[in-house]
């Protein structure tokens, strides 16, 4: 297996690094994701409907794939396999807010649909028309070794030749970090 691209997006410092180069956006927290979307994507309004975790995974994958020449799309041999330790906690908290007060009990369907961490893998697959494997793992620690063993196993299926991989961690809408890369068989 070999890694062919790398992106890091971190809310606290506003750091965005793509293949070793630092990109300056001048914003932090949730505003950083919107700024990345507006400057580097801009043609996918569904972004605004996503929960913080999906927004993070989506813009990180867009940065990564924007560097891929040619950009791989509409295929069955690319997987999306991500992991973190907090699952869909950010959206779980948002959903809890909509049901917390019995006197103001309006459970939001649009928030509810993101209360699973693997939705972000689906969002990336839908965007790029990837029909291959998608999976999301929740590890207690940042165990990249265990994660890469899973990816290696994935390549044994006879179909998958590459995968968007990495960690997308989102504690809440303002606190997140993603590190993604492309792995080829």
């Amino acid at each position, binding site marked *: 297996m070999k890694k062919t691209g790398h992106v890091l997006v971190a809310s606290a410092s506003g750091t965005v690094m793509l293949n070793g180069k630092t990109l300056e956006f001048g914003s932090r927290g949730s505003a950083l994701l919107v700024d990345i979307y507006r400057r580097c994507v801009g043609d996918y309004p569904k972004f*605004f409907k996503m929960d913080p975790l999906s927004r993070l995974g989506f813009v990180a994958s867009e940065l990564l794939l924007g560097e891929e020449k040619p950009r791989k799309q509409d295929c069955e041999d690319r997987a999306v396999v991500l992991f973190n330790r907090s699952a869909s906690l950010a959206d779980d908290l948002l959903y809890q807010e909509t049901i917390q007060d019995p006197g103001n009990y*309006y459970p939001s*369907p649009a928030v509810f649909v993101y209360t699973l961490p693997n939705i972000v893998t689906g969002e990336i697959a839908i965007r790029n028309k990837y029909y291959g494997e998608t999976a999301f793992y929740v590890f207690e620690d940042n165990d990249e070794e265990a994660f890469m063993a899973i990816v290696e196993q994935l390549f044994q299926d006879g179909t998958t030749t590459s995968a968007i991989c990495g960690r997308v961690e989102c504690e809440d809408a303002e606190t997140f970090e993603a590190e993604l890369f492309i792995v080829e068989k």
Partner: protein
Amino acid sequence: MEELILELKTKILEALKLQDMAPEDIDADAPLFKDGLGLDSIDALELMLLLEKNYGIKLKSPAEGKEIFKSVRTMAEYVSANRIK
């Protein structure tokens, strides 16, 4: 009625997180689903919630919303006739 239409447009943009649009971008008579704003089934549920939360109107099923959610104008007419708050 025009005031209610503007109010609904604002609430729809907020509820459906259509952050790149302004109220004036929505044609009050254009279809909300498919060709118009391109809303989906989850958006339909959010519109039902919007009616209940803001106007006290509780629809029994998404099917009931089919006629009501044809356009912002049909929504406004329904709200005007059925609101309890």
